[in-house]
């Protein structure tokens, strides 16, 4: 018994010694975020920062699958990463206990206003991001030219164009309906068109005060759009995922892909470097002015409030968003549209067209940020059941309304 006790005591001392060893020495920043598609760019940024602050060690980890679960595990184990990721908008309140308010720092002041609003609660700035995304329909210009049509800006034109494209032997849509997030990306365009204040509209849904059938834009237009997409889309709609969509558009099989945005451009170019990428909004109704793209950040990076290396982390974030290197990093290294003022914009096809369309017609608000992904995943499942034909439109609407209240009704 005594021997056993002494062995266990020795083991315990060894473990505690190991944890103490990590505590002294230079600052250490732990970054654990989603978005592995930008891993190379972020590593380049970290290497660049090493030259500015050689004493700081940055541990960068990224994953996409199950990111929220892994993050929760880390938080509950007491190892909240110094920089972690969530969605922007409503999810701030979920993580409020852990996220640092950095209003007034150079990083916060550098953010574009459109980005800052979805990252803030009142005057407190709780997040930042490095990608300002564009959401809309990505299409193949060559196919449209061959069919002799312009991109449709009304729903009637869209239906007619689908016939023409199908007659030419192309598949009008690749829908990616196997992914749950495609639905939220499509739905937000209809939310923006349904109300002048989509944030308030979503809040009403969350409080259970309104129904989908109160809004023809949601009840009729959205479901008509989905029906059209299924009719002219993949033969097995619930089996096509993001890779399937990109491959269909990149190989010239499909004319348009749904639920995507600026992030697919790199992948499409790697499939076909000559592809002519077109980008436009969703023709939600017969009013061409409502066919808008949406721009903004749907993801947010947050800084851990009680971090041991809070100062070092803040310095790094300031470097990221305000330094000269940082300002060119967005366009040159990461190839994304920047989220800060005075930074270089990349000359990608989607960014250029997106900016033109925004200048012409304005851009919609990132309505998906008004709900959390918990709701959106369930929303995606309900829409999948509708696409699969197992529930009717009214059943789907009833479930959507119920889940909105159930999952987001109480203020967190």
């Amino acid at each position, binding site marked *: 018994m005594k021997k056993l006790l002494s062995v266990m005591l020795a083991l315990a001392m060894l473990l505690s010694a190991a944890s103490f060893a990590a505590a002294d020495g230079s600052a250490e920043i732990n970054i654990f975020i989603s978005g592995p598609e930008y891993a190379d760019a972020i590593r380049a940024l970290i290497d660049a920062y090493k030259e500015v602050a050689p004493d700081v060690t940055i541990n960068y980890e990224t994953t996409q699958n199950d990111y929220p679960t892994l993050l929760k595990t880390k938080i509950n184990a007491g190892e909240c990463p110094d920089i972690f990721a969530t969605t922007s908008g409503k999810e701030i309140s979920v993580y409020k206990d852990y996220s640092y308010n950095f209003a007034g720092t150079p990083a916060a002041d550098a953010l574009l206003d459109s980005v800052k609003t979805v990252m803030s609660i009142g005057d407190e700035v709780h997040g930042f991001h490095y990608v300002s995304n564009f959401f809309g329909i990505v299409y193949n210009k060559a196919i449209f030219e061959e069919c002799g049509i312009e991109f449709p800006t009304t729903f009637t034109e869209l239906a007619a164009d689908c016939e023409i494209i199908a007659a030419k032997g192309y598949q009008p849509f690749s829908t990616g309906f196997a992914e749950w997030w495609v639905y939220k990306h499509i739905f937000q365009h209809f939310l923006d068109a349904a109300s002048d204040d989509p944030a308030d509209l979503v809040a009403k849904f969350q409080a259970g005060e309104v129904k989908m059938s109160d809004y023809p834009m949601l009840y009729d237009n959205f479901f008509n759009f989905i029906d059209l997409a299924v009719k002219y889309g993949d033969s097995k709609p619930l*089996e096509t995922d993001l890779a399937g969509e990109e491959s269909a558009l990149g190989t010239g099989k499909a004319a348009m892909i749904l639920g995507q945005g600026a992030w697919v451009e790199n992948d499409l170019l790697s499939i076909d470097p000559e592809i002519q990428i077109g980008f436009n909004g969703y023709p939600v109704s017969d009013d061409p002015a409502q066919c808008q793209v949406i721009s903004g950040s749907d993801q947010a990076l947050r800084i851990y409030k009680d971090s041991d290396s809070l100062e070092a982390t803040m310095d790094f974030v300031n470097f990221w968003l305000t330094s000269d290197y940082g300002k060119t990093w967005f366009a040159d290294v990461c190839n994304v549209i920047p989220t800060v003022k005075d930074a270089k914009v990349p000359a990608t096809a989607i960014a250029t067209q997106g900016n033109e369309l925004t200048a012409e017609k304005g851009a919609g608000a990132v309505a998906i940020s008004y709900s959390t992904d918990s709701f959106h995943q369930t929303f995606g499942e309900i829409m*999948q059941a509708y696409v699969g034909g197992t529930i009717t439109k009214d059943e789907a609407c009833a479930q959507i309304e119920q889940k909105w209240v159930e999952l987001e009704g109480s203020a967190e």
Partner: protein
Amino acid sequence: MRRSSRPRPGVLARSALRETIAYTLPAMILVTLMLYIPFVLSGYYALTEWNGISKTPVFIGFANFVTIFSGSPEFLKALVFTGKYALFFILLSNVLALALATVLTRGFRAVNLVRGLFFVPYIMSMTIVGFIWKFIFTQGFEHLYEFTGWGVWNYSWLGNGQLAFWSVLIVGVWQSLGFYIVLYIAGLQAVPGDVLEAASIDGANGRQRFFRVVLPLLGPSITTCVFMSLTNSLKVFDTILALTKGGPGGATYSATLEIYREAFQNNHYGLGSAKSILYFVIVLVITQLVLRFFESREVKA
């Protein structure tokens, strides 16, 4: 002659006891840490409302259980799905495994190699299995359809709610078949040869020998395999997560996956814990009943 060197019986018993404790203590500690303590904590969380992130859970008593019983159609749907899955899984696994085991005890030339081949899926990681079968179901079947034109390859095996159940079942059975085959081979090899000889002398043909002699003597093996396949199928999680993630449209949520979704995706950790406690009770009751039933039918050789 003095019996001085032998220790007294009491001392012997005490040192044996000390040894027993010393050998089992590390395992006991680990099991307590990994199983019992989390289980008790899970019971505590079942009485709270917590989103898994904020610093303090809110105590709400039995409200979670009330929610489950009064307004949770998804949990019921998941239970029905799991029940259906378990039933077919037990049937298919055991019948197939027994049939294959009988063939594999025949003693043909490559028998060890073939036994090994059947066991390989069991040691493959779930993610790999999921990817491989996803590829087979989508692209593999597509090409088979182009090749043969048979309608069965053209169905949407992963995109249709009804078919997805069978896809998940097939992959689940395929993956763990090797395990049950090994158990049945061991059971078959333990059937005494002289009993079989006596039966054939008495005029029993192959089928009668199998159903009247071998099968009853396989009682313990059958009990073990049925019990194991029952518990494994009631706990099915990885297969579904890798293949369909519960889709399409929520058609393939097993009870465990539904609990996972409730706790981690819907941020209702308290409700998820309550569901898991309830499910634990359900599984306990079912397995005890099944065990009692099968043990009563075993032939004690």
